[in-house]
């Protein structure tokens, strides 16, 4: 019986337990004068019984699937020839997987040697036992749980509390899954990075100004020793993020001010959702917009300016060169992408400034723009800064637009018309395609990931702190 159909059986059993519990509680209620004399409603008893059936059933399946493999393996190991047992782990693993293959019907025993015959037979019989007993045991446990649950249906027992507690535990487990997953990702990135720093010194990575992660694969290759200086990537990331913020902060802020202070309710109800649609456009769409529309037109205007400069003898203009992929194009489009972050967060904090402050200012004879500049903006500033920092961390982590529009060349430059590359883009290029998983090149991706994570985490922490401090001010 496959896991899927077993889960289906468990589900059916749970539903059956629910109805049994419901019926049982009504039965209990009858002699004592009806449902209102029970400590809880029948639906609670029903839920309780179904949970009593569901949880042990699921637990059996879960533990069986986890421990089934290792236990069978250790039993099979017992009948292997002694010299096989002493093989190094990789070769031993190979043998084991060959045995598994044969049991599954791939290949034949003659290919690996008859001395493995007992192991194959052992594995075969164990797997048969396992797959026969798992469903049987599961169903037994399910039925037992259901019966115990039914026995627990008494007038005095308050099933509401049991259900409440189980609900509580379920929620707790779900939230811990999220936390532990994050923790797991961080730890794995951290350990892979440590492996990277065994191959490439930490300071070479952090302070190196040259990035070219090509490594000689064959000994006779030349000119590709690989260098892993992260500075050009950081510079590229910061350059693009800076351009993006240069676009997003003024536009986002001003539209927030317009929406919260000037716009009529009708306009606001149309414009605010429209702005937020910008946040819903998939980044890959922004990406090809940047690569196919914005970058070529920047190049086009750049060339036009150069020709005009050449015709009019303006030396610096005549020497202008615009690459077809540029930091400017990626930055502009990324800026448009993060406008809604800035505007909607700023809008929230501006709205949170109490109306009484506006009244106070108007009451002293201030105009609307004076009130905004001198009272509302300073009062909302910490919150706005928080919003901008969140937008910045979004910009730094953004990948798709830069992959498509900013190029791959790791130039260390502050000229926005040149191609640059960013941390995220390099992570992508390091990992796409076939890679060995322990070369410095692939491990570098983890180090970059860690670097990026630390930067955005720091930005987020600062942003949240600032926003929180601001909130406290008016509570």
């Amino acid at each position, binding site marked *: 019986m496959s896991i899927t159909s077993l889960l289906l059986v468990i589900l059916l059993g749970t539903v059956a337990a629910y109805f049994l519990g419901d019926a049982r509680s009504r039965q209990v209620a009858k002699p004592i004068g009806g449902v209102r004399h029970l400590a809880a409603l029948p639906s609670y008893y029903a839920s309780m019984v179904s949970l009593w059936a569901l949880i042990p059933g699921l637990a059996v399946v879960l533990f069986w699937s986890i421990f089934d493999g290792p236990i069978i393996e250790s039993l099979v190991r017992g009948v292997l020839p002694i010299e096989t047992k002493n093989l190094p782990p990789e070769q031993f693993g190979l043998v084991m997987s060959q045995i598994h293959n044969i049991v599954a019907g791939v290949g034949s025993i003659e290919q690996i040697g008859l001395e493995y015959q007992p192991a194959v037979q052992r594995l075969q019989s164990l797997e048969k036992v396992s797959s026969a007993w798992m469903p049987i045991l599961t169903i037994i446990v399910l039925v037992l749980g259901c019966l115990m649950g039914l026995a627990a249906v008494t007038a005095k027992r308050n099933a509401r509390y049991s259900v409440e507690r189980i609900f509580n535990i379920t929620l707790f487990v779900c939230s811990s899954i999220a936390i532990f997953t994050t923790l797991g990702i961080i730890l794995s990135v951290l350990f892979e990075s440590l492996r990277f720093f065994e191959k490439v010194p930490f300071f070479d990575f952090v302070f190196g100004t040259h990035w070219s992660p090509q490594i000689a694969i064959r000994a006779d290759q030349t000119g590709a020793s690989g260098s892993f200086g992260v500075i050009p990537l950081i510079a590229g990331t910061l350059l693009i993020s800076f351009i993006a913020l240069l676009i997003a902060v003024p536009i986002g802020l001003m539209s927030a001010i317009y929406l919260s202070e000037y716009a*009529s*309710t009708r306009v606001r109800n149309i414009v605010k959702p429209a702005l937020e649609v910008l946040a819903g456009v998939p980044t890959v769409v922004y990406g090809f917009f940047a690569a196919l529309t914005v970058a070529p037109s920047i190049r086009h205007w750049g060339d036009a300016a150069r020709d005009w400069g050449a015709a009019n003898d303006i030396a610096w203009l005549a020497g202008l060169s615009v690459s077809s992929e540029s930091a400017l194009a990626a930055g502009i489009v990324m800026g448009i992408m993060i406008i809604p972050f800035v505007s909607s967060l700023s809008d929230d904090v501006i709205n949170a400034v*109490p109306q*009484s*402050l*506006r*009244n*106070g*200012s*108007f*009451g*002293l*004879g*201030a*105009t609307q723009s*004076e009130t905004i500049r*001198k*009272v509302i903006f*300073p*009062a909302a500033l910490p919150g706005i800064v928080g919003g901008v920092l969140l937008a910045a961390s979004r910009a730094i982590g953004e990948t798709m637009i830069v992959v498509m529009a900013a190029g791959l060349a790791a130039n260390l430059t502050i000229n926005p018309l040149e191609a640059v590359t960013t941390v995220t883009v390099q992570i992508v290029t390091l990992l796409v395609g076939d890679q060995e998983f322990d070369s410095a090149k692939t491990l570098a991706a983890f180090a970059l990931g860690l670097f990026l994570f630390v930067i955005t985490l720091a930005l987020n922490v600062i942003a949240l702190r600032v926003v929180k401090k601001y909130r406290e*001010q008016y509570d």
Partner: protein
Amino acid sequence: MNTAQKTNPEAAVEIPGKYQTVGHPLLDDPKMTVRSTSVFYAEKQAIFDVDLDIGKNEVISMIGPSGCGKSTFLRCLNRMNDTIDICRVEGDLRLDDEDIYSKKIDVVELRARVGMVFQKPNPFPKSIYENVAYGARIHGLTDNKVQLDELVEKSLVRCGLWNEVKDRLEEPATGLSGGQQQRLCIARAIAVGPEVILMDEPCSALDPIATATVEELIHELSENFTIAIVTHSMQQAARVSQRTAYFHLGKLIEVNETSQVFTNPEHKLTEEYITGRIG
């Protein structure tokens, strides 16, 4: 004095839009005059055809049950109602015989002449000094730092706050106690040099001791300013004001000398309110 007396006050109140205020709503030499003034929030009428004069250097208090339109009426006097989208004011309102709703008037200048203090102290999240200097800065009342310092000091002294805050002018105003904050807001209003000060329940968020200080301050300010104060407390009205106006469901029912309103009200509704049967 133009006295609007009438024979059957209750009957008059029952006819919507057509009633007469009892007592002495009008004066000979007023600072502000309000004539046939009605206020609407969208379709809903909040003030009905009010006639009232506010005298020079007098303190007039507005009393009445919650929602009767006291705040709405007060906000007409410096056009704070303009900041509420759905609010519409009809009628003729004058300050020193100048129509404050005419196209020619500059609202900003009007609000500098008719200052306002609100129910909840609302200091700006700036330093104490900057709060008081705010109005002077936006209206360009001083030419240099020395004059500004002087103005700030003078305003704080007048509000009896100077000794309490002179060593901490650069600290945030939000750190002051409620009563100090409210006096700061009054200092902020008088720093602009208004002629009239509107106060909307200025003590309702304060404890009794802070209330006493603010009342004393109002009393002192009445020497130089015209003050219109909305209050929920009849004792307060009795303590600080010369005249009292009683509002009921958006109508101005009675205006008389404060002592008369509280001892011998002319109108039945006023009497019911005073004796605690309405409100």
